[in-house]
């Protein structure tokens, strides 16, 4: 069943929904990347919540004009209008009052959402049109999706993807260094506006699929997951798009297999799974790699300390160090060093003494300040320099040979 869904064999409508959700995911992941890099991820929360009164108002207008009030394009237009109004309120509050951006975001999202709920109850009481399914916009529902709706979402999603692609350069510049972007002649305010417009568009397209409460997840989670895989912004953008697309596609497919699996939450949880996997296993910034790196460093330090102890004929009490020495064949389980162990210990000790001399020589100051206690000196200094160090060592007659 799931395989059929993933290979698009679950009927025409399910296929359209899966493609639409994938396009939405790509657009959301890419548009969200700029928000994330500009450290404004939660602005999407305000935008999405302020679509609700627009949906209500559009329904009221369309219903009073005689329709059934549920025309998706009309509802989207209404959502866009109030989302834009919410965005303006937020900007105005942050720029013109002393309130911080987070307070402005919270105020806009709660008030607009509250007013939207008031409108929904108004719609329920005035009994015009057919309001059933209107609350689907809260959490998304693809079950009641008509063919026309699916096409609308797919086309709009594709347009949003194209728009992100077209504007990626100026938006990346602004996200990383607004000052530099301004200096190179980019109108930062217009780019910001375009970015917000894009996020708004993605939010509105996503209303029917994931709903207004959860579209925020699709804008935030894929970029954050993608960030673990690369430090380069263009790659983060691409990976976020892929993650978003995968979440939309897989999520829609899974949810098509059973009626009790609501599309919006499943898509979000798919995205979160990708995030969790990225955080754990991504090379470079992933937790597993970080942990392994830490362990390796720890091992090297313990081994080195163990060898230095052998060189000075000190007994080794520490279990972990002893285990490491034994495993490397440098010592016997009772702590007595092997032949190889003595030889390696002597080398470690000589290295240490050379470093000690190098530390006193002014010509090597810059290098020695970077000494981490593990690197053999041969890697850092030339043969001539080491010969000079050995000469000085012999003069003072200290250390091991």
């Amino acid at each position, binding site marked *: 069943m799931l395989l059929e869904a993933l290979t698009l064999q679950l009927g025409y409508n399910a296929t359209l929904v899966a493609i639409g959700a994938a396009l939405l995911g790509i657009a959301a992941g890419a548009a969200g990347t700029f928000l994330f890099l500009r450290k404004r991820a939660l602005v999407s929360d305000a935008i999405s919540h302020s679509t609700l009164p627009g949906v209500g108002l559009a329904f009221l207008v369309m219903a009073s004009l005689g329709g059934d009030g549920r025309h998706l394009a009309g509802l989207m237009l209404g959502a866009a209008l109030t989302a834009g109004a919410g965005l303006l309120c937020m900007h105005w509050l942050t720029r013109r009052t002393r309130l911080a951006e987070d307070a402005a*975001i*919270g105020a806009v*999202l709660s*008030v607009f959402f509250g007013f939207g709920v*008031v409108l929904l109850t108004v719609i329920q009481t005035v009994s015009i049109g057919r309001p059933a399914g209107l609350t689907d916009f809260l959490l998304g529902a693809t079950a009641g999706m008509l063919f026309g709706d699916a096409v609308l979402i797919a086309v709009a999603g594709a347009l949003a993807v194209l728009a992100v692609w077209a504007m990626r350069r100026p938006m990346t510049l602004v996200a990383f260094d607004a000052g530099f972007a301004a200096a190179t002649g980019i109108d930062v305010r217009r780019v910001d506006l375009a970015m917000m417009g894009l996020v708004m568009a993605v939010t509105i397209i996503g209303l029917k699929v994931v709903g207004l409460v959860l579209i925020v997840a699709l804008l*935030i989670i894929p970029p954050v997951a993608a960030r673990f895989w690369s430090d380069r912004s263009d790659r983060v953008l691409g990976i976020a798009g892929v993650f978003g697309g995968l979440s939309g596609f897989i999520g829609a497919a899974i949810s098509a297999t059973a009626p009790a699996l609501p599309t919006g939450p499943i898509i979000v949880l798919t995205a979160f799974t990708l995030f969790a996997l990225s955080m754990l296993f991504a090379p470079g910034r992933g937790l597993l790699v970080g942990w392994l790196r830490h362990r390796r460093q720890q091992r090297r330090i313990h081994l080195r300390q163990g060898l230095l102890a052998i060189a000075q004929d000190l007994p080794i009490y520490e279990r972990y160090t002893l285990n490491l020495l034994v495993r490397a064949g440098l010592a016997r389980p009772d702590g007595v060093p092997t032949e190889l162990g003595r030889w390696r210990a002597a080398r470690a000790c000589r290295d240490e003494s050379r470093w000690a001399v190098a530390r006193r020589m002014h010509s090597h100051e810059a290098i020695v300040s970077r000494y981490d206690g593990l690197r053999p000196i041969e890697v850092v200094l030339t043969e001539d320099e080491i010969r000079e160090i050995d000469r000085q060592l012999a003069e003072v007659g200290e250390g091991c040979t």
Partner: protein
Amino acid sequence: MGAEFVMLSLVPILIGVLAAIACALPGNFLVLRRQALIGDAISHVVLPGIVVGFLLSGTVNSWAMMAGAAGAAVVAVLLIELIRRLGRIEPGAAMGVAFTAMFAFGVLLLEQSDTSSVHLDVQHALYGNLESLIWVEARGWESLFDPVALAGLPPELTRIAIVALLMLVFTVVFWRPLKIATFDEGFARVLGMRTNLIGLGLVIMAAIAAVAAFDAVGSIIVIAMFICPPAAARLMTNRLEAQVLWSVAFAVFSAVMGYVLAGYGPLWLGADDAVSAAGMIATVAGLVLALAAFYAPHRQSSGASRAT
């Protein structure tokens, strides 16, 4: 203002007012510390907690659900910290990842489990059911002195009253450390205060307020009351004492005005049914903030040049 008012409106208004105060008090510090959206995050993540509490206890026993909600709030705080520290992700995005995912999980749990028989659904979680918290036993104002009638008060009222009192006590008792840690964290640390402990305490108090208010009035009011009255109050004054008092006044005004407009406004306009009280309270709070943003004496940051 007769018997009908006492039975139908008195208790919801009281609950609304108490919930508003309970959220506005910690909200003052959250707004000043630029953590205003913690209220938003908490009110989303309590949903899975409430559902799990319901599934484990098998009843709509409110204490089990509140324990679940509190547990979920703790999980969320840990998850946010984990993502922020281990993943080196900025706090806003970390919060966004954690609360949206947990909310989605909550919705999925709701759909999967057969909770339709009880009053537990997403709409309820979002809007609350303030209107349904009526005092059936009340026969008029004299019922306020009738022990039998008083025993029939909705339990939500008692709970939110206790929590509002708790918030008041917390604010008064920890006033000085809260104030210093909020305005000058470095100075507070020099004085030997455990600033991260104060911050954690504040988040926990906010979570308790959010859970209790959520139980009675739904998540919209919680978010609105955490932010709007304190934000409006912030524009009224430069003194923290005055700000807190203003915020309480705004919260009370929003709750009463919002409830009255929702309950009686449509009747005045000739409609039959009331509209959502929770939504209207949030709307009024927003109008108060808008007025403050236009006319309040300290709406601009002091000393900032406004050349543009």
